[in-house]
């Protein structure tokens, strides 16, 4: 217990924050008669100040403010014994954690968080083995593996999980009721940026661009995914109509690799590790990383229902903070190797460590005999730019997934919790942007988030 360590500094100051388990100190606020340096035993960090305050409050309450009795008692039994006696009758640790997680206690600690076994969900997944949830008091929180995106959506809607790993278009689609019953969802944080790729069958080594892809059969993991939106965008920019000139099928990622191997499909735009896995299996080659299409594009996200956030605000806050911490930890290149080891086992990704490491470090073979070194092949940044939500909505409308007038800004701001994320990032000491909208450039074409309809009209190939 933390109290024991502080005690080692020895007795001394009569200070309000002095060690309450020391027989030589006074806990009276005005009784500071000593000339010794108060820093001697006074705790230094914010956390230990809170710890000490809680301890003192408990001890003072126990001795009903009688400081002399307290000092006699501490002198008699010794501080560590006293600490353990008090801890046995009063949940000191819980009180300390509670005080730190102000403004209130956690409504629920043992959360269930759904995830899909792909590297996009790295922060959500690694937060379990690397104890980011525990750090924020969510002791007993579990991450549960879902079989596919439709399943994780249903888990989230039916409250079988409290929060979930989703593709960033999914909370928007759920809120709008596209492909599901409308349920208000929140997307507090983005997980990864970049990190996807177009993988092609070995027989397509000579393909240069979309113009060579007419008649191809592609796979994407889900309709409401960045994969689908980016693949369609890429093809259409090259003059290929994604609905008429190629086939795009929704296929679970492991089956993509098997289908590619069997030659049933020509390629896919998929999350990793399934691009790198195709190289590992000798089934295909990495044709293009998605960061070449849109540097810094969002992909997967952390999502929770609005109901969860409203009914359990403190828990929501704690899990939100855990995710931000984990995401910022994953952002640092020097941590990526450890993360690969933590998330590769059967309980999480169930993939060879080597493949996960190639994805996370960006040092990888592309299947054509070349080795690449792209540290930002996948990156992690929690900030949910609302301009990204607007872009996703323009593309959902472009391809007919949503119809009629779309109130881009309102929906983007309702679902992508940019300012909340910024506040918590600031609290954690991370650098934050001052805006929540910014212009993006996708394949050289600029997107102004204030003019979504004009942007939509500017495309030659569209379904509206």
């Amino acid at each position: 217990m933390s109290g024991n360590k502080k005690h080692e500094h020895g007795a001394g100051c009569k200070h309000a924050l002095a060690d309450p388990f020391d027989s030589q100190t006074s806990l009276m606020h005005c009784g500071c008669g000593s000339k010794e340096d108060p820093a001697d035993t006074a705790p230094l960090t914010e956390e230990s100040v809170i710890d000490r305050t809680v301890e003192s409050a408990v001890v003072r309450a126990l001795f009903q403010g009688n400081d002399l009795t307290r000092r006699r008692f501490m002198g008699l039994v010794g501080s560590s014994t006293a600490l353990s006696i008090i801890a046995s009758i009063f949940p000191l640790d819980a009180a300390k954690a509670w005080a730190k997680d102000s403004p209130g206690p956690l409504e629920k600690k043992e959360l269930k968080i759904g995830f899909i076994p792909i590297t996009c969900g790295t922060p959500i997944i690694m937060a379990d083995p690397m104890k980011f949830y525990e750090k924020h008091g969510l002791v007993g929180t579990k991450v549960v593996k879902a079989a596919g995106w439709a399943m994780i959506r249903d888990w989230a809607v039916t409250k079988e999980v409290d929060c979930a790993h989703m593709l960033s278009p999914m909370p928007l689609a759920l809120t709008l009721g596209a492909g599901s019953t409308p349920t208000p969802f929140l997307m507090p944080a983005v997980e990864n940026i970049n990190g996807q790729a177009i993988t092609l069958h070995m027989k397509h080594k000579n393909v240069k661009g979309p113009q060579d892809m007419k008649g191809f059969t592609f796979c994407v993991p889900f309709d409401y995914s960045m994969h689908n939106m980016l693949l369609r965008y890429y093809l259409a920019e090259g003059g290929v109509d994604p609905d008429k000139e190629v086939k795009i099928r929704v296929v679970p990622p492991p089956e993509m690799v098997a289908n590619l191997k069997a030659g049933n499909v020509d390629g896919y735009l998929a999350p990793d590790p399934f691009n790198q896995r195709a190289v590992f299996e000798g089934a295909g080659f990495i044709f293009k990383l998605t960061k070449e299409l849109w540097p810094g594009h969002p992909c997967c996200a952390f999502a929770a229902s609005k109901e969860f956030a409203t009914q359990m605000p403190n828990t929501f806050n704690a899990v939100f903070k855990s995710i931000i911490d984990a995401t910022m930890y994953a952002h640092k290149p020097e941590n990526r190797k450890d993360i690969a080891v933590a998330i590769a086992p059967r309980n999480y990704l169930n993939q060879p460590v080597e493949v996960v490491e190639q994805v996370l470090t960006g040092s990888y073979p592309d299947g054509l005999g070349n080795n690449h070194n792209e540290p930002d092949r996948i990156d992690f940044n929690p900030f949910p730019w609302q301009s990204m939500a607007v872009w996703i909505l323009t593309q959902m409308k472009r391809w007919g997934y949503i119809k009629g007038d779309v109130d881009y800004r309102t929906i983007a701001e309702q679902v992508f919790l940019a300012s909340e994320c910024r506040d918590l990032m600031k609290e954690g000491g991370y650098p934050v942007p001052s805006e929540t909208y910014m212009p993006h450039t996708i394949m050289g074409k600029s997107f102004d988030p204030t003019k979504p309809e004009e942007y939509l009209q500017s495309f030659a190939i569209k379904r509206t």
Partner: protein
Amino acid sequence: MNTKNSKAWMILALLLFVLFLGSWQLVSMSLKNMPGPIPVAKTAYEFLSDPFYDNGPNDKGIGTLTLYSVSRLTAGFVTGSIVAIGVGVILGLNQVLFKACNPFIQVFRAISPIAWMPLLLYSVQNSNWTALLVVFMASVWPTLANTAFGVSNIKKDYLNVANILQMNPVSKVFRVILPAAGPTIVAGLKISMGSAWVAIVPAEALLGSLGLGYFVWNEWNNLSLTSVIFAILVIGVVGVFIDVLFNRLARRLAYAD
């Protein structure tokens, strides 16, 4: 069955097994990436030497997963069978009702229990209950049809004797009707058990509910065919084991006409 015959079938079975292993080995050598019997045996040894490990909510030992599947099967099958036998007796005793319901039973019987899954998940909103209900659905129809058929074909003499003895309806069902229709009902139960065990694997794989189906899916995610083949063998062996147990139970219930 005499001893000579029993030895003959055992030798034949052994030969078939060797033939199976041999052709498997040949297939694995000609197909790239197809694991043969030896790597599968190694994997099996690894999984079976620690069958109840627990590495978190998404990684549990094969023994634990089998128990999950078997208990799901038992719960779904028992409730399904009770409902099926109950409704079956009522239909069997009432010819008009039986005729009216029969087309519906035949339609429902033809539907794969997995096809119910999205609908069930949507209505009960819980994947564990959905998996259980899929097993329930798989168990109900064969037993229901067989019970109704068996009861409606009981010799009229039995029922007449029961009426003469002025038995109350409850003891009439338990002491006359069920024993008389017993063999047909047990045959229905056996079919139900088989289809329930067949349904449970895809249900677990699709729902992500812990069990053997989950194991298959999780290993498929890692493209680990060795583990998938091991899982297939486990599913088969457990299925046979359940069947044997069931036959023993059925023999106890059997009676001489």
